[in-house]
């Protein structure tokens, strides 16, 4: 027999835990589609997380805090855009530096916020009432219905990004920059601008994801709150084959793994450390599989991914 309460709990957690992953992964898809790999996801997320808590406390409105978190993520991504896109520095180095900066900065600035209560300020379920349903299915239905607005909006984001990338001229320009900046430039596309824009948009989404983590999931600020979620998002981009729509199933799968590790803690005689390794181990497995040559040809990574583009006088 399946324990319906446990199952309901699991589904509820999975839907919630998927939100930061969906937002951050979708953001990274945009950046990588334009040819820029941004390893600053973790840094942008954690800054968004802290700023989200701080602004919510000041303004008294979680929506304002959530959006502010997005802008905090965007701020760090702008640095990446400046260094890696405009100045053409190594994208990997710049991204890691930004993650380090985000982690350090939040440790320092977040001291006063650790454990501060957001009582009455956290996102509340859209439908706060009792759900009339038979006892067998009630926990499951509750788990799906009783979420705040952001959980449902986050499902729309990848769909909107898919439309942007595949159904608009701006999206085609973004993809052209990711496939061949030389061709894009010769056709009159401002590669630097488009890449900068994509990185910024990505950063905004990382920040939103981070803000939801503190506001919606944890409910307060703690040091190192992201604990690797940003890195998982980077891995999920490849797992989603750079397709925004596929970000949804892959994020839910990963969120399910994470939620399972919470739920199984204390239920079975396995160390909690081992369980919290699940997401990272699965990221490694996914990345290994995906980097097997035969798969890689088929999954379609952007050709110019990670290659800086600086307009040259002599093109060779």
């Amino acid at each position, binding site marked *: 027999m399946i324990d319906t309460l446990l199952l309901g709990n699991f589904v509820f957690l999975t839907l919630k835990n998927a939100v930061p992953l969906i937002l951050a992964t979708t953001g990274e898809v945009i950046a990588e589609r334009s040819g820029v790999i941004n390893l600053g996801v973790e840094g942008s997320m954690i800054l968004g997380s802290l700023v989200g808590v701080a602004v919510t406390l000041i303004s008294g409105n979680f929506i304002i805090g959530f959006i502010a978190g997005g802008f905090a993520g965007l701020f760090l991504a702008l640095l990446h855009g400046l260094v890696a896109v405009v100045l053409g520095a190594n994208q990997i180095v710049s991204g890691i530096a930004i993650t380090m900066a985000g982690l350090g900065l939040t440790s320092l600035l977040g001291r006063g916020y650790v454990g501060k209560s957001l009582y009455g300020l956290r996102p509340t379920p859209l439908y706060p009432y009792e759900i009339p349903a038979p006892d067998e299915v009630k926990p499951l239905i509750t788990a799906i219905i009783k979420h705040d607005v952001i959980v449902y909006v986050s499902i729309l984001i990848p769909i909107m990004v898919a439309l942007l990338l595949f159904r608009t001229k701006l999206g085609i320009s973004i993809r052209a920059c990711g*496939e061949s900046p030389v*061709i894009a430039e*010769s056709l009159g*596309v401002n590669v630097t601008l488009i890449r900068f824009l994509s990185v910024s948009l990505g950063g905004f989404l990382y920040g939103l994801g981070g803000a939801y983590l503190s506001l919606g999931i944890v409910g307060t600020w703690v040091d190192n709150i992201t604990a690797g979620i940003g890195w998982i998002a980077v891995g999920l981009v490849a797992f989603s084959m750079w397709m925004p729509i596929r970000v949804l199933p892959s994020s839910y799968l990963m969120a399910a793994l994470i939620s399972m590790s919470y739920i199984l803690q204390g239920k079975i005689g396995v160390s909690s450390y081992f369980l919290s390794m699940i997401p990272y181990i699965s990221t490694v497995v996914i990345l290994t599989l995906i980097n097997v040559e035969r798969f890689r040809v088929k999954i379609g990574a952007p050709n110019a991914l990670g290659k800086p583009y600086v307009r040259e006088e002599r093109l060779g």
Partner: protein
Amino acid sequence: MGVNQTTFFMKPHGDENNYILSVTGVSKFFGSITALRGVDLNIRVGEIHALLGENGAGKTTLVNILYGLYRPDAGSIKVFGNEVRINSPKDAISYGIVLVQQHPMLIDKMTVSENLSIGLRSLGYLKSPNSVKEVIKEYSIRYGISVDPDITVSNLSFSERQEVELVRALMLNAQLLMLDEPTTMLTSYERKKLFSVLRKLKDEGKSVLLITHKVMEATEISDWITVLRKGEVTASRPTNKYTLDELVKLVVSDAGVFNGVRSVKFDYNVVKSQSPEVLSIKDLIVVNDVGGVAVRGFSLAVKSGEIIGIAGVSGNGQKELSEAIAGLRKVVDGRIVICGQDLTNKGPKDRVKAGLAYIPEERLKYGVVGDMSVAENYILKSYGQYSGFGLINMRKVIEDVNESIESFNIITRGPLEKVKALSGGNIQKLIVARELRSNPKVILAHNPTLGLDLRSAALVRELFLKAKADGAGILLISEDLDEVITLSDKIAVMYKGSITYEINKNEASRDVLERAMLGLLNV
């Protein structure tokens, strides 16, 4: 851009200065190298103008200046008599000047309509690319081009890609269409088709600048020819005011050398039947990047001292075949034997050891490392013989490289120049020099003279004949049918992944071969 673009096109045609484009005294220097010196070029409305010159004569540099990719160091550019500054392709396009580059500027993974939406100003930023489909169809019908807007570019042949480029130029409202070596990879049928489109454009009052190194081509289609040699204009007059001999002399900077190469009597020794097989391919099956069967049941043997030519239209499995032989692509089934060793699934290094030299089609991708110097590229395969105690003796390397630079007539600033700064023809000469110096037993050459001027091509061909006389077996895969016919002892036609037609050199007929290449032959 202070000048409104519409006023440009409304100038009356009877204007005395009826030049759509007028270039005066343009010079361009790359460091100490003079690429262009005081070049004048005048293109009239409704004219097909040929810019004729060898590789390295400065044609591409001039075109890049006109397209805003380089900035001239001196001189002026006028569009309809108004002086303009062209700082980017965007500027050029706004003046109605559009370049169709030698390698189609298309993104393989995108569809035709997506490709044609990139940078299209008339399309709003958030508007769907679907709206360009109608326009594509309209132009296709008008100019007799067949372009399917929904097909992914990777499925198109070279000439189809070029047609897509032409449609793009028209969509950008091109008044002056510049084509950089457009016929290099076309069959004669495809070339005729292209020329008929160009004539149609001319009839509509558009101008065409055809950049070419082929004398015959320039005389065939153009109204006016400007000859460029070593960065300077040597002649510019109506096409019918030239004689062919005169043109050749004007184009080739050192006519004596050219004649010397050309007059070499090729020695077509009949290959002795007991010559050993150096390369044998049996029932080879190879798949392409997307998993389709590209080479199906291909069998062939090359003997020492013979050249076997494989003719065919690009995209019939030649790329996959040559990569499989070179060890760059996995073989699904079949065998590859080089000098008696079965190397079917061995890597490139073992094949080199067995005596294989590979002259790849994609020079910059597989032939050289662009960011390394001429000298470093030269010893990529043989650095072992220059090292002592693990260190490379650069002095010895540079001596040898200088010798090759001279004997192969490679135009470069020196052995330490980065290879990517060389022109395509000179890179190819460098690769051939490197590959042939080890006295290989088997030479695999894929489009070895593609994009090379007459003299460089003749030099490369002569080197092949020399290698052949020294006992090498050569497999020549080429889209240039004339080259295959001239060089090969035996000719095979590759169509859809296998050999559909085989013939000895002296029995070959060009007409039959061309039909076989297009799959029109009932075997």
